[in-house]
């Protein structure tokens, strides 16, 4: 575990950041450094990356192949070209930003960290006790590559119970940006100078025609990957897949294909060996509910892997609702896009992303329906965990601020 900082060390960190940001760097210059660093991190043989993944795997009980593929997906969009393009858009900001990171998804927050650095801000990052290593190691790589850019990122770790240290972080930064669930954001405290990325939910749509025949297999494979990466614990992980079709047969067929792909992925990217009791209880409850609804004659079907490794629940009439994560996904049926909008209503305002398998369907109509429900990111199946650098995370407020709406 990392050393616990004192309040003085956090204040000192903020002073160092102020000093570092008083020495302006052009965004393209920062983009070059970031491109070099993130290219290294995309390499599975890179020692810091490997050591980080091994630590996280041990601490959280996640499999190394799963973490490798998840991190690959997250880092894929951070190409030199994409960074350069973003650098051309950012508005320079000499300010100190504090980040309180969530621990459920390795690297969550990277998009905002990169944006902040490109914009010339100084960043003070508090990592989660569950996953304190990724940003710590990334900051070291950054400092090794370029001292001036590296000096703009300071990483600390303390528990959320240390409200005094979090208060200090609030006091020394111009704005605090917490990630995570409502309790995390509440623990940080309310009030001004704080805008959080709260908890969000994602899903997928398979339009008519994409659910059967040759395309369906590929769509199922890609969506199984979207579900599986990060153990389905991030805001970009789909919890439910809506299949547009006239007959339920297409949707059940798709659920079966998806289940096969989930099984194949579980063999290649093993699920956690030991689940925490609370997680296992949540998964058990979801399965037993589906099982008993089926026994009672409801048109619900459960297709599952061994133990609690993964499950596909065919629940044709279900509204969108969150699953417990950990490879638990529902497949539902819609007849029209208007019906989809109705099914999303319970989570309106809490939606982040949708994967859309459209097979020729008109994307602008789909985009309109999903945007009206609050979806800010549409992805191809298989690409959900690789949002572009211009991802409008949480509705895009941070991106807009850093690019001044450009």
């Amino acid at each position, binding site marked *: 575990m990392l050393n616990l900082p004192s309040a003085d060390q956090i204040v000192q960190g903020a002073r160092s950041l102020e000093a570092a940001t008083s020495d302006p760097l052009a965004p393209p210059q920062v983009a070059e450094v970031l491109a070099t660093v993130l290219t290294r991190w995309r390499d599975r043989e890179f020692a810091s990356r490997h050591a980080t993944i091994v630590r996280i795997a041990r601490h959280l009980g996640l499999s190394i192949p799963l973490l490798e593929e998840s991190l690959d997906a997250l880092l894929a969009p951070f190409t030199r070209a994409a960074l350069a393009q973003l650098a051309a858009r950012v508005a320079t900001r000499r300010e100190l930003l504090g980040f309180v990171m969530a621990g459920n998804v390795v690297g969550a927050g990277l998009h905002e960290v990169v944006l902040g650095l490109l914009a010339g801000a100084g960043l003070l990052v508090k990592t989660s006790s569950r996953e304190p290593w990724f940003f710590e190691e990334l900051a070291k790589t950054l400092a090794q590559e370029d001292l001036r850019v590296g000096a703009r990122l300071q990483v600390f770790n303390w528990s959320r119970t240390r409200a005094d240290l979090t208060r200090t972080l609030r006091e020394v930064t111009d704005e605090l940006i917490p990630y995570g669930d409502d309790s995390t954001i509440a623990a940080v405290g309310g009030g001004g100078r704080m805008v959080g990325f709260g908890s969000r939910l994602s899903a997928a749509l398979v339009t008519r025609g994409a659910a059967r025949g040759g395309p369906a297999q590929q769509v199922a494979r890609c969506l199984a990957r979207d579900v599986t990466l990060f153990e389905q*614990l991030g805001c970009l992980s789909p919890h439910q897949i809506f299949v547009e079709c006239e007959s339920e047969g297409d949707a059940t067929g798709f659920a079966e294909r998806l289940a096969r792909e989930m099984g194949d992925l579980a063999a290649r990217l093993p699920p956690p060996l030991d689940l925490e009791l609370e997680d296992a209880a949540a998964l*058990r409850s979801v399965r037993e509910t589906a*099982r008993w609804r089926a026994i009672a004659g409801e048109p619900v079907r459960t297709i599952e892997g061994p133990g609690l490794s993964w499950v596909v629940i065919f629940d044709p009439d279900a509204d969108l609702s969150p699953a417990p994560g950990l490879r638990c996904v529902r497949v539902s049926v819609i007849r029209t896009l208007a019906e989809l909008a109705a099914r999303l209503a319970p989570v309106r305002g809490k939606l982040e992303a949708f994967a859309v398998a459209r097979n020729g369907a008109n994307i602008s109509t789909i985009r309109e329906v999903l945007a009206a429900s609050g979806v800010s990111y549409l992805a191809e199946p298989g690409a959900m965990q690789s949002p572009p650098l211009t991802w409008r995370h949480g509705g895009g407020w941070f991106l807009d601020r850093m690019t001044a709406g450009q």
Partner: protein
Amino acid sequence: MTIQEQVLSFIHRPEPGRFDSLALDVFRFQYVSVPPYRRYCDHLGIRPETLSSPDRIPLVSTVAFKYASLCAPDSAQLPGALTFLTSGTTRGRQRRGLHVVARADIYRASALSHLRTSMFPDGARMRMLAMHPTADRMPESSLSTMITWCMAEFGQGPSLCAADRWSLDAKAALTFLRRAAKDAEPVCILGTTAAYAAIFHGLAARGEAIALAPRSRMMDTGGPKGQMVPLGAGEVLELAQGLLGIEPAYVINEYGMTELCSQLYDATEFNAPGGADHERVKLAPPWMRPLAIDPTTLRHLPEGTRGLLGFIDLANVNSVSAVLTEDFGMVHEGRIRILGRASVEGSRGCALSVAQFESAARA
């Protein structure tokens, strides 16, 4: 002798050595008579003739009671049958669980026998105060039925039910308690922890304490359900002593649920002299076996290991005896430590969790 008579006989004259064989007989009966349970067992590939130990009897999750009719067909129409509904308030779920108790006499025998052991081991009969509606006011509540039976069996002298399905009449309850204190007569109070919280709040607000007579006792149940700021078990003990003069050994928490015909009670110096632990544990009656279950494998966990609590409750003979709860706990030498409700919290961090979704849906 029918299987029901065998269970009734066991409740009246427990023979621990017979539990396993009776549990297997009860399972065989339920497999045949409860169609949804049979379908579930078939789905798991478990048939009664293949079982030689109750350890492998399939446990039915309490969620099943929300969806399936876990009793013999037409049981609810049998004379004297009782139909209970779960409160449906936990986590804001709309659907309520349903438990048909075809033989009320077996439920009554189970409830009263363990109440006698746990709440009235001294053979006392006394004034009764119910702070939860009795069965005439809330017939669908299994707790109401149990309280009604308790008042009839162990009550003596004045009694009062100070609640209906909508509210607690705290003023009437306090008047009753003041009168008992003035008469120096012991009282047994029965109610939810939420009802006690209201009474404690009322007394504290007035700066009043009622000194109930020695041997007064109270049973609280339900834990945090219905409370804005839940009272902890230690606080209940403290407030009962400070505001009602009830000795901690006579403050006994009950753990029960609609889906089970038997209950657990705290072991204290009053009902288990010399056997009460420093930290409160609960005791099941001899016709109920507590289990800690691994939610991943659904196998029994070793003694003292944290898991989901499960029970084989022979008193559930006409529905399903092997029940898996959504409560965490551990079992050691037959003593049960309740560790709280599984949260179905699931994913944390930036993903929306089930609990957040449900609390937003309630709002």
